């Protein structure tokens, strides 16, 4: 099943390499990965989505927690975390189909970023499920290219306090 980990790490060179290496050597594939600095610029936040069974997920968390650069790792899979993902899609578009595409964009609160002679580029944002629905709606028009950020996750207010407050040093 898809697992969602949030790792709070030092913001310094090599952290991504160590984290990825922990997965690579055990043959665990990383489904998506986002990283950016937190409110404290010396600290980074990773959201890592991967497909692992329970035992492998426990092992992955434990191996990540052993890394010196890592402050904390949370497996938030079971906490129905808040997820946001952004997709850029190039869709085949002719004069006849443009109007339908604009309607779909409107329905999904997506942006039309560019319109060309035979294609359009749309940007959609939302939960991974909403993006899947957006793509399903667009698929009949002919999807030509996709770029996707991967999920950024945060736990719900009721589920946990800020993961960043756990950072001591």
């Amino acid at each position: 099943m898809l697992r969602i980990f949030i790792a709070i790490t030092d913001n310094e060179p090599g952290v991504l390499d160590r984290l990825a290496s922990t997965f690579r050597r055990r043959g665990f594939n990383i489904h998506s990965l986002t990283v950016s600095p937190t409110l404290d610029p010396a600290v980074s936040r990773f959201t890592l989505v991967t497909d692992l069974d329970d035992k492998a997920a426990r092992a992955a968390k434990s191996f990540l927690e052993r890394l010196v650069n890592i402050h904390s790792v949370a497996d938030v899979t079971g906490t129905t975390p808040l997820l946001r993902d952004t997709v850029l899609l190039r869709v085949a578009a002719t004069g006849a189909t443009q109007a339908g595409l604009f309607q779909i964009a409107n329905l999904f609160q997506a942006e039309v970023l560019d319109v060309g002679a035979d294609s359009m580029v749309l940007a959609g944002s939302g939960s991974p499920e909403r993006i899947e629905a957006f793509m399903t709606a667009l698929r009949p028009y002919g999807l030509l290219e996709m770029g996707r950020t991967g999920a950024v996750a945060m736990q719900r207010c009721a589920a946990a306090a800020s993961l960043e407050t756990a950072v001591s040093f």
Partner: protein
Amino acid sequence: MERPPQPPESASASASARAELPGAQIIWRCLEREGVDVVFGYPGGTILPTYDAMVDAKVRHVLARHEQGATHMADGYARASGRTGVVIATSGPGATNLVTGLATAMMDSVPLVAITGQVPSPLLGTDAFQEVDVTGVTIPITKHNYLVRDPRDIAPALREAFALARSGRPGPVLVDITKDAQTRAAVFDWEAAAPRRHLRHVPPPVPDDLLAKAAAMIQGSRRPLILAGHGITLSGAHRALAAFAEKAGIPVAATLLGLDAFPPGHPLFLGFMGMHGSPWTNLAIQEADLLIALGMRFDDRVTGDPATFAPHARKIHVEIDATEVGKNIPVDLALLGDLKDVLDRLEPRTPSLDTGAWLKDLDGMKALFDAPTWPRVRKGEGMSPVDVLKELQAQAPGAVMVSDVGQHQMWEAQVMRHQRPRTLITSGGLGTMGFALPAAIGAKIACPDAEVWAVAGDGGIQMNSQELMTLTQEGLKIGIAVLNNFNLGMVRQWQTHFYGDRRSASTLTISPDFPMLARAYGLRGALARTPGEAAAAIREARAADASTLIEFQVDPEASVYPLIPPGARIQDMIHEPPSQEAPC
């Protein structure tokens, strides 16, 4: 993160009171402050500034003949002394030659700090002469590593490296320092460089309620068994182990690296477990109703088939590294923390069990297997390798034994009685051939008053034989026992058992004249082909002033028994050769 070459504002106040030093001098100041008395290394282009500064440093340098040898020396030094070993090498091939040594130390949790030179920072990533991305290469085989490009980062990196190497589960840490960081100057501020991150993942003391739970599990057990691993020695817990085992009346089995953690003559000591362990020890594991695993990791060489391992036993795992819990074998209770602390606190809570019936059962198993006749090898042509080791045991009972990897390593583990912690030094996890000779050099430097023996095969001794020169150079006296069976014996044995005895690249049809090789390096050399010659050669080696290499020519077809085939059930252990071979 790249920093400008000027000192930062925050440091300027203290800077006015302290002179700046070149990075190379900061390295040595740090090593001195860390209490390092000896480093093992090999110079080269990008580490030259550090070697230049070494001339004025109060640290002994041992010049190896190969960087791999230097790493194993630092490893042997660390294992024998309990201190952190230090190895220094240049960039590129110097650094890659450390890889096997670092991986060896990583697998066996040995505290090492490796310092490598790196090309000047403007050349990083340009495929400059002798440039290799050693921090990238060593991520999986170090606890942590650093690429230092600024002299101000040297002291913080080195202090943290030492703290990390010895904290929690020990291991190797590499610090890669560019040549310009060694030559440029910075303020040396030891206090400001105090490490903190090593404390991040050290578990807090085990809560009392978990200790009570463990005590209750022990109380309810009728056939408890302690599995003692390397963690006993690493946490200095051998006395705590003895106190705990004696109070509770629980027998003790040991992993390869736990063999020196419990007195071999103790009535509760059951001996060596695993693939080549004693039959009764392995059967005790299968019969036990409670396993108390202390600083061991249920390695595949211990468990065989994990699904059928210790089927009747509940398991308590005391371990400092959380990744080990449940990794190979599911456990019922994990006590995450320092082993000595856990045992010291568990012992008063532990009941004295009446294990008389269980101990009697174990005696019955020993009798069933005729324990005194083990380890068994065939009575074949040539001298028995087991007899050679028995002779060594008889003459040098208190020696620090440093074994290589292969058949002789298993016979050493089966025969020799390691009386004190840190008297068995061997590459357990990685199984590194070529380890014994350089590690024995490191052990001798750590314990100059101890008798040290390296035991190797005719294969392994040739993997780092260049370090014979280091022995003579340093004026060290050790013994080197080469058990020459004219084969890569363990490979040959597996081919015999698992590949229909088809011998593929396992026969060493030609080897150097080992005694002559020793003499070429300035050592004494001896050859023994009979038990009488063996006894005399050992006697003379022990009486001599210089190191002696003794080549013992032994039965080429002798095999190590018992043997649990890889991945097989413990009860499937093989006791004797396939039928085409002569019986034991």
